[in-house]
């Protein structure tokens, strides 16, 4: 296609629920996404528990580019582009660790953990007059945020503050990332990050976790073999009633509502886990009352951070590495205060559920792979994708923020909201315009 047709809103028809395949397969659009989306939006970097001590660092990604998440010796957290200011060499090639400085292996330029340039090869002799080292530190993100231990950053100094960017989806964080008992006792990462490459466009993954509840057939095999932690039919325990919950910022959450009076029998395969969960549920009921059973199941924070908040509990970032390739980074989390035996059981359940060896996720990757592949052809591109489920049904809700569609109606409203916002980012140059675009009753056009 020619570049004159690349206006994103022409490719995303919200009134009809039709989205052009071009946005998933066109290399020119992918190049624009790097600038329009990944250089502007808030992106998930890591978790503060990965850099607890001064000098700790964890190498992450923002879009295709490598960044260093680190804590300096004053205790301040930074996110730097992982590229030497001198000649571009990746200054840190270890995945994580602790260091007093980042020393480039190419020409020995050396940076403190706060990013300042402190060492230059042959500085006294080679540079006459001397240059100002303070102007040649590591490139740092202009904005960074720490929300409930999750670290986020944007390359855009004009982007709104993170909490405004998150909008009312903050509620999903508060419900999903707290300890099971609803208290401030906190959650912690279970350990290292799974990283793997999948031959699909990154948006297949983001939209899937924003709330695609019609893809049950993908996981029929794990439902049949009783993958769930109670040994019953299904890949997880009963989570109550599903509710899709979408936001004008492009975030999508799939909530579940569990009746407060119903007995909780989850995790029957592990008596200790089941007992701990029930104990937490009783405390959650006392603390949250009517809202105790309201909890996100999965969600996507625009553009590429997704999570599971119940079974399993995990964070996922879908880092784009090409039009047709994505690097998935998945970490897992548990209640800090859970007994070791509970953490152990959950760790093993999580691993057999998610990740490249996860029996559930394996089938997702196959579908995303060949949906991407079979959409690239000249003829295939002529037909839009179909996102019409629940078109026109969503509405504001008394209990939950955002726009809500409840069972028995299944809805693709969240992917629609995601692509509406995607088109805003692609077409609109300023944050004022982006703010205006979400202030309209967006779901009326969108659903």
């Amino acid at each position, binding site marked *: 296609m020619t570049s004159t047709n690349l206006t994103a809103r022409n490719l995303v028809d919200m009134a009809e629920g039709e989205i052009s395949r071009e946005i998933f397969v066109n290399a020119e659009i992918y190049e624009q996404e790097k600038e329009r989306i990944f250089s502007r939006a808030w992106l998930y970097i890591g978790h503060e528990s990965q850099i607890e001590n001064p000098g700790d660092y964890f190498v992450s990604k923002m879009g295709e580019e490598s960044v260093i998440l680190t804590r300096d010796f004053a205790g301040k957290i930074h996110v730097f582009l992982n590229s030497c200011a001198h000649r571009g060499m990746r200054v840190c*090639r*270890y*995945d*994580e*660790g602790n260091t007093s400085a980042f020393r480039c292996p190419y020409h020995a330029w050396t940076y403190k953990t706060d990013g300042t340039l402190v060492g230059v090869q042959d500085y006294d002799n080679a540079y006459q007059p001397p240059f100002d080292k303070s102007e040649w530190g590591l490139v740092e993100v202009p904005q960074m945020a720490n929300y409930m231990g999750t670290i986020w950053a944007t390359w855009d100094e004009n982007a709104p503050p993170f909490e405004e960017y998150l909008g009312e989806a903050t509620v999903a964080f508060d419900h999903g990332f707290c300890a099971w008992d609803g208290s401030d006792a906190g959650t912690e990462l*279970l*350990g*290292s*990050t*799974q*990283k*793997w*490459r*999948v*031959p699909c466009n990154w948006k297949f993954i983001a939209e899937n976790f924003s709330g695609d509840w019609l893809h049950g*057939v*993908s996981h*029929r*095999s*794990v439902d*049949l*073999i*009783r*993958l769930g932690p109670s040994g019953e039919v299904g890949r997880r325990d009963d989570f109550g009633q599903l509710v899709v919950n979408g936001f004008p910022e492009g975030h999508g959450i799939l909530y579940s509502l569990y009746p407060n009076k119903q007995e909780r029998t989850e995790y029957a395969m592990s008596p200790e886990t089941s007992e701990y969960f029930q104990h937490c549920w009783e405390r959650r009921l006392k603390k949250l009352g009517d809202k105790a059973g309201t909890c996100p199941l999965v969600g996507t924070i625009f553009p590429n951070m997704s999570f599971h908040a119940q079974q399993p509990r995990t964070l996922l970032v879908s880092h784009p590495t090409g039009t047709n390739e994505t*690097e998935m980074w998945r*970490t*897992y989390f548990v209640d800090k205060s859970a007994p070791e035996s509970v953490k*152990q059981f959950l*760790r*093993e359940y*999580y*691993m*057999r559920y998610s*990740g*490249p*060896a996860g*029996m559930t*996720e*394996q*089938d997702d*990757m*196959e*579908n995303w*792979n*060949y949906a991407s592949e079979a959409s690239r052809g000249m003829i295939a591109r002529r037909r839009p994708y179909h996102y019409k489920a629940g078109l026109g049904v969503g509405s504001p809700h008394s209990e939950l923020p955002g726009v809500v569609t409840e069972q028995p109606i299944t809805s693709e409203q969240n992917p629609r909201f995601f692509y509406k916002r995607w088109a805003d980012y692609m077409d609109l140059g300023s944050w004022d315009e982006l703010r205006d675009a979400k202030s309209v009753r967006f779901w009326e056009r969108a659903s």
Partner: protein
Amino acid sequence: MTQTALSAERLAYLDLLREVEDFFHHEADLLDEREYDQWLDLLTDDIVYWMPMRKNVSYKNRDQDITAEDDIAWFHDDKETLVKRVRQIQTGVHWADEPISRISHLITNIRLADSVTSLDEGETMVTKCRFLVYRNRLETETDFLIGRREDTLQRVQGELRVARRKIILDQSVLLAKNLTMFF
């Protein structure tokens, strides 16, 4: 040409090594011919089947390039989970391996890690080997997964069985989109 007689000890060692080689080759055949139920019989009921992840670390920290046993891994399965993996493939609706992939296991560099010459009933021994697992599916999708294995073998009712398998894959970012195969 004169033939030097092998000592009884040397012969016993070679016999055991040959038995281990045969066992691993038989296991590879069962997997590649999709005789999964027979393959499961080669594993003890308390098997630990573990594929840790790999990290980019300095030479100084080289002992940390394999994630610890209590960390997240690619696989950390007991027998029950391995049975579920087999049952999943057998459902016929496990799309990641449906249509079925073509898989070959090459097992080489087989060594007995301990200086053992016999393995009596109930005893265990550690073996080391290299694997190359090749997968090709649909038209052109192809993966080569290469690494080391450390297996603890146990003599059970006269036969060798796998009691523990540590699979050390030589990739940090996994370049296969998923791991539907066994190692």
